[in-house]
């Protein structure tokens, strides 16, 4: 019975933390946020060198062969730094091929995804909250795809796009293929830019096994982990602010009203760490609990993160409402985490059904 992290896992998190503190401090984060690129290619290369790009790709294909928990621990730290990175889409695209690819498909793509030569992303939703595989309409006719997908993260830098099809199948589309068109969306979270993807008779191959639900579950866990890391960071920023900001001749952190708000923020987020840990562990080890655990973790943590972000703005007062304040960067990350792959009510309803309620 060990509900804790290994030394390797703690080391992975510490390594990433120091990398972000050094290479993407708030000043650099701000520059990327205010530009259009949505990430710094040098940062992505650094993550690739740390092995993050191939973390869950089997060793036989050049990856580290680790589990979803390890990936989620990375997502947590990236959330802490509001780190602009194609990590999320790349991880899910890789997992899709790990879980659904034929041997030939794995052989063809996984080594390049692990080495960072190919950057992947996913195209799931088709608008109107159609995130669930059962809602997808895109069909493949004569080995070709025609149709539209909304909200594809970091599609501008992706080489390979895993596209969800009607019936929960997944297809592989190369961005450079003929008939692929991208249109930038004015996305709220500039650390994870979104694109509308139009396909016009694009040649696409389908993955051997329909793994869409599993990939969705992994995505929910990663968003939950990101939400935990991000919300924890906001609590930390608010506490630090309360220790330095003075009003009425004392630091505001001495006022009970502020103290209690910060204590409530802590009480809301800190115990929920185990929720994403457990959901990630269940994904690889407890098949009966995996889907429901992922749904509850995403719903709970992204809801708590959104509330934490609102509280953080309030704790910072007027400055918290400005573009100049870093709080807005995490506030918008909360909006992304909450809405991407579907808002909490849908996942709660699914969890209720899965429980037999």
């Amino acid at each position, binding site marked *: 019975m*060990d*509900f804790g992290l290994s030394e390797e896992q703690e080391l992975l998190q510490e390594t990433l933390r120091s990398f972000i503190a050094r290479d993407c401090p708030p000043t650099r984060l701000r520059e990327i946020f205010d530009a259009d690129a949505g990430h710094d290619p040098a940062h992505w290369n650094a993550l690739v060198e740390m092995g993050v790009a191939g973390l869950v790709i089997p060793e036989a294909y050049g990856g580290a062969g680790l589990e979803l928990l390890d990936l989620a621990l990375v997502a947590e730290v990236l959330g802490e730094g509001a780190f602009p990175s194609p990590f999320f889409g790349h991880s899910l695209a890789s997992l899709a091929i790990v879980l659904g690819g034929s041997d030939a498909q794995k052989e063809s793509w996984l080594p390049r995804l692990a080495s960072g030569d190919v950057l992947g992303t996913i195209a799931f939703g088709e608008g109107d909250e159609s995130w669930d595989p059962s809602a997808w309409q895109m069909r493949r006719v004569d080995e070709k795809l025609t149709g539209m997908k909304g909200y594809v993260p970091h599609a501008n830098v992706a080489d390979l796009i895993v596209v969800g099809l009607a019936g929960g199948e997944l297809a592989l589309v190369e961005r450079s293929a003929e008939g692929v068109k991208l249109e930038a969306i004015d996305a709220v979270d500039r650390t994870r830019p979104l694109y509308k993807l139009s396909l016009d008779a694009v040649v696409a191959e389908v993955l051997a096994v329909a793994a869409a639900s599993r990939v969705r579950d992994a995505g929910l866990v990663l968003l939950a982990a990101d939400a935990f890391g991000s919300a924890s960071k906001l609590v930390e920023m608010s506490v630090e602010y309360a220790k330095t900001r003075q009003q009425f001749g004392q630091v505001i952190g001495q006022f*009970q009203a502020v103290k209690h708000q*910060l*204590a409530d923020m*802590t*009480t809301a987020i800190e*115990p929920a760490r185990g*929720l994403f840990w457990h959901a990630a562990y269940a994904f690889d080890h407890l098949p009966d609990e995996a889907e429901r655990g992922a749904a509850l973790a995403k719903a709970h943590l992204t809801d708590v993160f959104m509330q934490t972000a609102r509280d953080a703005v309030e704790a910072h007062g007027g400055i918290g409402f400005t573009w100049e304040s870093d709080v807005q960067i995490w506030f918008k990350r909360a909006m992304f985490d909450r809405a991407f792959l579907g808002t909490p009510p849908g996942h709660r309803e699914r*969890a209720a059904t899965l429980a037999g309620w």
Partner: protein
Amino acid sequence: MDLKYSEEYEAYRAELRAFLAANWPPKGAGAELSFREQAAVFRQHAIDAGYVARGIPKQYGGSERAADVLKARIIAEEFRRAKAPGEVRGIGASMLVPTLIEKGAEWQKERFVPPTIRGEMVWCQGYSEPGSGSDLASLQTRAELVGDEWVINGHKVWTSGADQADFMFCLCRTEPEAKKHGGISYLLIDMKSPGIEVRPLRQMTGTADFCEVFFSDVRTPKDHIVGKRGEGWIVSRSTLKHERDMIGSAESSLLTFRNLVRLAQSTQRGGRPAIEDPAIRQELAEIEGYVRSHVYSGYRQLTAASKGGSAGIASMLNKLTSSNIGHRISRLALELVGDAGLCSPNGDPIMSVNPRGESGWVTQYMWSLGIAIAGGTANIQRNIIAERGLGLPRERAAQESR
């Protein structure tokens, strides 16, 4: 991370199951005894076998085993499964005994610990006073040393079980000249002493589960003090810590939540089970997010403790988390019982993970507030989290009254 127990622990569990199967419930002549006697006989076997009173040295009647939080958890799980009487419950065993083991004089341990862990000596706690709740250290009950005895005058309140207790551990002001915290001593008082008057205190549920205790020239021997004069505040700190752990149990949150789900399944709303109502399903799933977080946070604290460490600030959040959850659960339950919420609850027992019928949930709705107050109010918990956990400065008023 590995949620299975290792072979060593599974072997321990198997051994324990065999012990329970052989000893509980009692067979043969043992089965003829009263429940109280059966429990006493069984508990002694369990102490001898090392399953109960593990933290208590053998010389004081315990089984003196090395601390092992995983074994402790397995014991709790298996005793619950077998419905076997485990550790004696109550404030004496859970709060006084650890304090005596840590801070008591030798004769006090010998005299008080063995009967208390056997359930033969019952205790109550004399802490709160009408004028001293959250600001406990401002307490005014006086104890004056006259010859070989302390003479006690004052008034304690919220004293659970004072009407049935044999003894009270009590905080009294013995050094009126000293500063607030430094003027308190921790005394042990025989509840049969002349001058003690116990009155029931009726709470909003209609029943009286607490007492008030009045002291008029009550006498207790000079050596019935734990620690030195003026050290009572420090001595009492270890006990309060124990009470917080006791109330902050994630297990009870989980069990209560499961019973809430059953209530939603068995209650009709608009001609169909309430659990089919989308709003109820949302609320249940939302509460479950908090319950699971609490349970896994407990796993994490358990793991940290088993490695000799601590889960940091997480352990300071247990009580507030648990009372927040209790609140939400009982609020939804009150909604589910509908019209029954118009009726007075009919004398149901104190807070339970499995409230009986609609009235039981109405009682629970009120008791969830009591739990948020007892042992340190929610607002005091927030102060502790903010000041000790987050490192925020103390309020000026609190600083100045030290």
